[in-house]
Structure formats: C-alpha cells, structure tokens
C-alpha cells in the first residue's frame, strides 16, 4: 500500500495561512519590532516540569554533544535583549514531546515577541490589538479577569485559601479524575485540572478573555508580585478565545540568581517525579548576569490563531503536514 503522502491542510488553507502571517509581519514592521531568527537547537533546554523536551546528539567541534530542541525561542531571544537588540519578534518552530491532539502538535510555530520597558498592561493591549488585526470579523470586547475571581465565579472556591482537601474533592468530581490519583497531588494539579476542565471552556465566548494574577507557584519565567489582596501572584497573563488558550505573557524575570534557583528547583522536582533532568542554559544565565533590560514578553500559538481565524476543527487542518504525517 502506498504511504499517505497528502498534506493535512488544503492548498487553499495554506494561501490563507500565508496571508494571515503577512498581516502579523506587517503589524510588527509598522511598530518597529525587529524580526529575528534564532537556533532551534540549544546546549540548555526548558527545565519546566510540565514540558517534555526533545533532544538530539550532534557532532560538534567539541565532539559529540547533546543538544535540546527548543520548547519556545525564549532563551535565545533573551540573550539578544541582553545584547541590546531592542524590541524583537520571531515566528519560531518549537517542539513539545507527546503533545498531540485537536489543539496540539509536537512541532508547532510560536509567535514570540519582547518589548523592553513595556508594562504587562501595555503588552496585553498590543497582543489583543494584534489578534483583532488577524481576526477582522472579531468585534467582541476585551475582558480582564483575575484567576481568583474565575474560581469564585465558576466553582465557588478560592484558589489561594480553600483547603487542599476541598480542592481535591472538587477536582475529582468536576474534573472526572479518580480520588486516589488526586490524593497524591498538590494544589497546583487540582487548580490546573479545574482550570482546564471547568473554567477554560467558558472563556473567550464572544469576547477576548485576559486572565491575570496566577498563583506564584505557576510563575514559570515571570516575576512575582503581591496582588491587591496581599497574595503572591505571578506577573503573567493568558489570553483566551473560544475556550482556547492563545497566548501567555510575562513581566520577564531578569534576576539571574532567582532564575538559576528556579531552574534548580525544576530539576529537583524532575528527580522527585522520576523525569529526566534538563541541562540548564548557562548562556542565558550569563546573559542575565550581564543584564537584560526590564521587558514584557509573550508567546502566542500562531497555528491556533490561524485555526480559529479559519474556523477549522483541528490544528492539523492548518499545518502543511502534522507530526503523525511528517
């Protein structure tokens, strides 16, 4: 039998994809944001416990080296910022092992950009303006929510103060997960489950929803600050449309010491969970030590945005070839 050689997107879709990407490039050109290209491979990788990296062995001038395929272009772009690049954007191939589904593909394209001296509020404004440019038919309002407020509205619990016992019971019931599995899990797994299964599908209906003030434990590479209620929260936002998470933005952590500590905590957690450790990106840490300007940055899944713009059911419908078909 002949192998299935056909593209997963129609040629017509690829024309529309190219047109939408041209709009993105024009948007940044007009705003004086430089397009850059950085390597897909790196000596360090993402230590994030919830991201599975791909790696490869390469013969280099120093002999055989393990190189990591990026889960986003963040580290290289931050090194450019430290070198004085000013505002930059990139459409970067990124890789996340095991992520396959209607909204996921192991290899995908990330639109990522950084704005030195921007506040998170300015970046949210720019991100929603870009989305409105790509989706001209979208006329809905932009609505801001606090993470805490969403849990109050949809689940009548508080993500910061409700007891772990109550969160586990609620997560088992509303998230359809076995109580035995959840008995071994902490707050973040319960919150992630409730957010993914109950809250997210409600977001971005006839509006662009911006979610703010995530728990500090979910900060990733964002700074932390105390919110109006005195809780420590992550200085980051996520953007939702039609129940789909489109973008994730940070007030970027620029403290080298704290960054090293977070990488090491991630790897300690990886050891505890029996997951492979990931080589820490020493070049990024050196760049942060040298000094990266205060910046806000955001990563947007451009394939998903195109999928929404074209009303396609599956991500593969807007990819020339999905990973299972590559």
């Amino acid at each position, binding site marked *: 039998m002949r192998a299935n050689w056909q593209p997963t997107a129609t040629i017509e879709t690829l024309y529309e994809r190219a047109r939408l990407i041209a709009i993105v490039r024009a948007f940044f050109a007009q705003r004086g944001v430089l397009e850059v290209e950085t390597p897909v491979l790196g000596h360090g990788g993402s230590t*994030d416990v*919830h991201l599975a990296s791909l790696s490869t062995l390469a013969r280099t001038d120093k002999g055989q080296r393990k190189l990591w395929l990026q889960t986003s272009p963040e580290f290289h772009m931050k090194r450019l910022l430290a070198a004085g690049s000013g505002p930059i954007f990139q459409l970067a191939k990124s890789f996340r092992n*095991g*992520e*396959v*589904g*209607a*909204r*996921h593909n192991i290899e995908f394209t990330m639109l990522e950009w950084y704005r030195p001296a921007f506040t998170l509020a300015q970046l949210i404004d720019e991100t929603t303006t870009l989305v409105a440019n790509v989706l001209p038919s979208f006329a809905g309002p932009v609505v801001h929510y606090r993470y805490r407020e969403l849990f109050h509205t949809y689940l009548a619990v508080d993500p910061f103060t409700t007891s772990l016992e109550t969160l586990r019971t609620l997560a088992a019931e509303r*998230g*359809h*997960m*076995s109580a035995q*599995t959840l008995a071994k*899990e902490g707050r*973040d*797994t319960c*919150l*992630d*489950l409730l*957010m*993914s*299964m109950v809250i*997210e599908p409600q977001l971005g209906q006839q509006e662009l929803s911006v979610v703010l003030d*995530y728990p500090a434990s*979910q900060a*990733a590479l964002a700074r932390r600050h105390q919110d109006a209620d005195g809780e420590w929260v992550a200085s980051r936002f*996520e953007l939702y449309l039609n129940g789909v*998470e489109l973008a*994730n933005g940070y007030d970027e952590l620029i403290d080298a010491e704290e960054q090293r500590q977070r990488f090491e905590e991630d790897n300690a957690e990886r050891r505890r969970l029996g997951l492979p450790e990931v080589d820490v990106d020493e070049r990024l840490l050196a760049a942060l030590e040298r000094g990266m300007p205060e910046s806000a940055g955001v990563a947007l899944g451009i394939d998903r945005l195109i999928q929404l713009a074209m009303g396609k059911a599956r991500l593969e419908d807007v990819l020339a070839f999905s990973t299972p078909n590559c």
Partner: protein
Amino acid sequence: MANYSTNEFKGGLKVMLDGDPCSIVENELVKPGKGQAFNRVKLRNLMTGRVGEKTFKSGDSLEGADVMDLEMEYLYTDGDMWHFMKTDGSFEQYAVEKKALGDTEKWLKEQVPYTITLWNDKAISVTPPNFIELEVVETDPGLKGDTAQGGSKPATLSSGAVVRVPLFINQGEVLKIDTRSGDYVSRA
C-alpha cells in the same frame, strides 16, 4: 497484560478501569497554558455498555484488558444459558449468561453468526449482525393492494422482537430488519 500509557490510548484499545474491562472511545489532550497536562478520555464499560468520561494525568497508565471479539453461531438455549459455537471450524462452544446477552436476546436465530466479546475467556456481551432475516409469526392481516406509503402496524418476529412493519406485510413472510435501530428494511 501490558500497561498502556495515556499517549497510547487509541479508539478501540481495551483497558481495565475500576475492575471492569473498558474500550477507549476517544482521547483528547487538555493542557492549561502552563502546568500539568491531562488526557480527557471517553471509555465504554464493556460490562454495562455505558460510556463515561475519565481524566488522567498525561503519562499515567492503565492495565490492558484481555478482551477479544470472536464470531460464533447461535445454537440453542437451555433456559438458563445460551449456547454459541465458534465459526473457525473448531466446534468450540461457549455458554452465555442472560446478563451478557442483554438486548440481543430478541434478535437470536439459529445458525446466524454473532460477535461475542470475551473477557478472560468469559462471554461478556453479544452483538447481532447489523441486518438479520426473521419470519413474522404474528401480525394483523395484510391490506391487499396497499403497497404504497401509508401506515404501519406492529409485527412479532420469530425471535420475539416486535417491530413496526408496513400494512401489506402478512404472517409467515420473512423480513430483513436492521438490528441497530430495530427498523424494518424490506421483504427478504
């Protein structure tokens, strides 16, 4: 049995869940922007036929279930058990309980092949062929000349099933029936 991880959950895979064998219907990855990924899985409980939803942490695994589908002909019932025979030439017979037979009881006919689902070599469900030919054993007399559209009437078939048939059908006729919907298709 082997264990299967969430990324191996494909439609049709048979796994054990809470002590019952289940068949995976659908598996979708859900992941918040940052944080734990989950698999939202629809499973059909093969003992009850019910479809339920269950969420797993991505990477978790379930034990495989020793389940297989075999083709067998219906032989007879002794009132307690229903007896079937493999069609592979082995003449091997299986006795099926009423609970496993379920709704298929009303579609039984000797020498017709059925799909028997075995779990640990025990029959847990019986699926009839999509179409089956059965004789009408009782219905109101046929209306002569009424072969066009129009009303319908109940007819009892040799297997015990009652189906709606056109008015022109007579007792003793053999009909083709769709067992999935219980609808009359045509005269056989």
